[in-house]
């Protein structure tokens, strides 16, 4: 009696192990086909714009009021299916305007020129050269792509929000609820997100792949300059050598790729 019970348990255990390991084995054998890394190769469009490190210079002198920035923000949010929530807690934003002391905390002083103090500043993901969010992500759902863009795989993100804690710029938003009913007009060319994942500005990687400049740059009438930071001939580099620029919290060593002419 006792030995048969033990035998039954043993068999049941082995059976459970077999059933349990099946998906693992399936995945292991299906993945490489021979152990090689299954890196999918996506064919690049001939007109695609590429760079070693995309960067942006924002000429803040060109924006006198928040109204000047509205078209840029609107273009970005419309193209990327960013929902609009009334509830502040659920808010999602990729690019928005804020005041000097919020954009550059620690750099403020009481005697700034009136126009600098009163001006609004565009803030967005800095696509850091050394991004802490990428370091923190436990699934590589957020990563630095071959063009230096910090980008996200919305389908891999588990929604742990470690990246949001890691980002020193508050650039990331979380889908606290299903965003789809809150999108005014869905752009079918860009994926909507599910609830429970993080999202942020992607420097319009999908537009660069088609040879187009980022939506905010296109809408900025030259106030935003976009280009390859590592290419000495690029327009971005030219603007950087001709103007004094600052970056947000550069003392943290993340090397933001968004520069500001103040």
């Amino acid at each position, binding site marked *: 009696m006792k030995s048969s019970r033990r035998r039954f348990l043993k068999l049941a255990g082995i059976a459970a192990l077999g059933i349990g390991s099946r998906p693992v084995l399936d995945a292991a054998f299906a993945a490489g086909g021979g152990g090689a890394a299954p890196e999918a190769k996506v064919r690049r469009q001939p007109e695609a714009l590429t760079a070693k490190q995309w960067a942006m210079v924002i000429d803040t002198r060109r924006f006198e009021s928040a109204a000047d920035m509205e078209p840029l923000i609107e273009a970005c949010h419309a193209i990327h299916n960013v929902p609009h929530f009334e509830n502040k*807690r659920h808010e999602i934003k990729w690019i928005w305007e804020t005041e000097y002391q919020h954009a550059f905390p620690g750099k403020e002083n009481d005697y700034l020129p009136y126009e600098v103090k009163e001006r609004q500043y565009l803030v967005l993901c800095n696509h850091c050269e050394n991004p*802490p969010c990428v370091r*923190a992500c*436990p699934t590589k759902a957020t990563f630095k792509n071959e063009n230096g863009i910090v980008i996200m795989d919305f389908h*891999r993100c588990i929604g742990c929000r470690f990246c949001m*804690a890691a980002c*020193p710029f508050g650039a990331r938003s*979380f889908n606290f609820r299903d965003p789809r009913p809150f999108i005014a007009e869905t752009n079918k060319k860009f994926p909507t997100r599910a609830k429970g*994942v993080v999202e942020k500005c992607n420097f319009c990687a999908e537009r660069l792949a088609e040879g187009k400049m980022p939506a905010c740059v296109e809408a900025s009438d030259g106030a935003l300059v976009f280009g390859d930071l590592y290419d000495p001939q690029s327009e971005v580099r030219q603007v950087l050598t001709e103007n004094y620029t600052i970056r947000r919290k550069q003392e943290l060593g993340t090397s933001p790729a968004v520069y500001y002419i103040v």
Partner: protein
Amino acid sequence: MLEYAVKGSKRYWGLIFALGAIVGLGALTWLYQLSFGLGITGMSRDVSWGFYIAQFTFLVGVAAGGVMVVLPYYLHDYKAFGRITILGEFLAIAALVMCLLFIFVDLGQPMRMLNVLFYPTPNSVLFWDMIVLNGYLFLNVVIGWNVLQAERHGTHYPMWVKPLIYLSIPWAISIHTVTAYLYAGLPGRHFWLTAILAPRFLSSAFASGPALLILLCMIIRKVTKFDPGWEQIQSLAKIVTYAIILNVFFFLCEVFTAFYSNIPGHMDPLIYLFAGLHGHGTYVPWMWASLSMMVLGIILLVPPVTRRNPLTLTAACLLVFFGAWIDKGMGMIAAGFTPNPLHEVTEYVPTGPELMITLGVWATGFLILTVLFKIAVSVKEEVRV
């Protein structure tokens, strides 16, 4: 030994069903959260971790605190603790299950949880936290069960358990160190960006864990025939005393560095917690209560008269436990996010459903604790007779 779990008095079953009911309510609320999203909580874009992660952090401490009975017994051959090591190990198991559940209920996409294994990412501290927490759970289950079974049969536990016991001691330190590193390495979160965060976590762990263990021992003395022992309780009380003093000392070190250096980024979260910032001060009464409770706990624990009196000792342990709970289970996470990276203050207050899910996870832990302690106490009672 599992049969002990299903043989019990009316009172035992009453407790099981009461806890089970809370677990059920919590699970139902979690289903609501699963369908709506984490928007049912008080979390926001600015305070993106809340009550769940705070409870997780506190309970990692409780789990690590169990080592304070294991270490003296196995490393210093302090025989008295032999009676209660199993209680420390089983408390760690219950606390770890709660930790893992709190991470689980905090995920936006829980069904994708296994991505952490499918795409292992050693540069993420969360990856290491997953390893140390599950590893410590595994160690405590294997060690606890084997040692208790050996005690029941009146034999020595198998020799292969010994290395696991030695391994479990540094492992206990590691779970709270790695958990502190989740926070302590994030640029721009000044409240957490301190080398002393891991020591702070450990000191509060070694206070709150053993304090809870003393309270549990007091209950066991009252309601069962097994006496964990007064000497054992007194030794634990001394551990709690040292640990809570260290915890308050470490906190004062933080206060000194922040305010003597006068660096705004370092001062702001502390000002937010203890005085309110830009007119927001939800946590102010809680934080002062927490600090007072810990100080009062010290006042009751240091003089031998009050430490040796069961009544004042119980009061001291309650003060230490809840003081540490407010400090870590409420203030620690909110202050890390306040002010936010743009120096704006968004306040976080947990919602009703969020509290219900939290309560459900705590009830799950106490359900597991009740069953495990029932088994352990039954074995002890049987061996004694």
